[in-house]
């Protein structure tokens, strides 16, 4: 349930506190540790591409979006193709528009400066954690920033380690690190279903994601699938 219709406009139905930030950081700490190797992989790949340490660190620190960073490295050449880089980053990160929209009932109940803080470090993982928390009736959007901060710290630590010792770390598959993200999301979906959400949008979304995978540019099958799932949710309730 999104607690929006029960509130009149302008009435705060969300809060943003330091305790919430701390709670988010603590909750996602174990997850963030397992993201470090992905940061190491980026640091190593950036160094291999020829980025000096400062540029690699600045990329991780300000972009803070793994898939987009790796995609941009593929385009790193002379002269830099700015338009292609911008479009690829937009395509890979477009799903964050959807994550932000899903969180908007709580985010938009905050004053503007807190909204900026709330979305600043949005990623898939702190979205999944915060959305589940808010849906259970939690109100503290600080949790989203807290989760983002701890992931950011580990992401930067990983990038640093990768820049200076990347080649020493073996294949992340050996440790099962490549499945961390999907396992976490699968767990979120099970939790969501247990709390009474409908399975139909999920089924439609999975079908559309796979059906459009080879047809749409990289990443856009996720957008198409999410929109189809969203529309399924509307149709189910309209009947």
């Amino acid at each position: 349930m999104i607690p929006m219709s029960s509130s009149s406009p302008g009435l705060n139905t969300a809060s943003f506190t330091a305790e919430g930030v701390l709670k988010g950081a603590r909750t996602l700490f174990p997850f963030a540790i397992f993201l470090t190797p992905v940061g190491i992989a980026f640091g190593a790949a950036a160094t291999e591409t020829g980025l000096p340490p400062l540029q690699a660190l600045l990329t991780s620190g300000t972009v803070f979006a793994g898939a987009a960073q790796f995609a941009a490295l593929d385009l790193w050449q002379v002269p830099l193709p700015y338009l292609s880089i911008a479009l690829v980053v937009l395509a890979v990160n477009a799903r964050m528009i959807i994550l932000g929209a899903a969180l908007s009932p709580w985010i938009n109940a905050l004053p503007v400066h807190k909204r900026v803080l709330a979305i600043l470090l949005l990623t898939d993982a702190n979205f999944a954690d915060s959305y589940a928390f808010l849906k259970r009736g939690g109100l503290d959007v600080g949790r989203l920033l807290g989760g983002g901060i701890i992931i950011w710290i580990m992401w930067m630590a990983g990038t640093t380690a990768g820049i200076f010792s990347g080649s020493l770390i073996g294949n992340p598959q050996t440790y099962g690190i490549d499945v961390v993200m999907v396992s976490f999301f699968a767990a979120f979906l099970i939790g969501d279903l247990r709390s009474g959400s409908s399975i139909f949008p999920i089924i439609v979304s999975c079908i559309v994601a796979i059906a459009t995978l080879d047809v749409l540019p990289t990443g856009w099958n996720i957008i198409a699938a999410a929109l189809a799932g969203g529309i399924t949710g509307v149709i189910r309730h309209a009947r």
Partner: protein
Amino acid sequence: MPDSLSAYLAILLMAAVTLLTRALGPLIMARVAVSKRVEHFLEALSSSVLAAIVATALFQGGPREATAVAIAGAVMLLTRKSIAAMGAGMAAAALWSLFID
């Protein structure tokens, strides 16, 4: 290698585009009247986007990834702890790499 000015410009560009995608969802929704219909849309959207990511990864992966996710799902059903589920999925994938291929 690109000279440093071009490189920093490209990094700034990537950061700006990414920030835009983070901000755009709430910005768009602030201009949309939140009816019951929009509520249902957003609610289905949130699980759909993660489901799409999982489905894509599983479709591109093999039996190793499918087994890991199935075990993560089973642990979530039993314990309701997403971190435990994540750990189980990882362990399953690591063991698969160790013993199967």
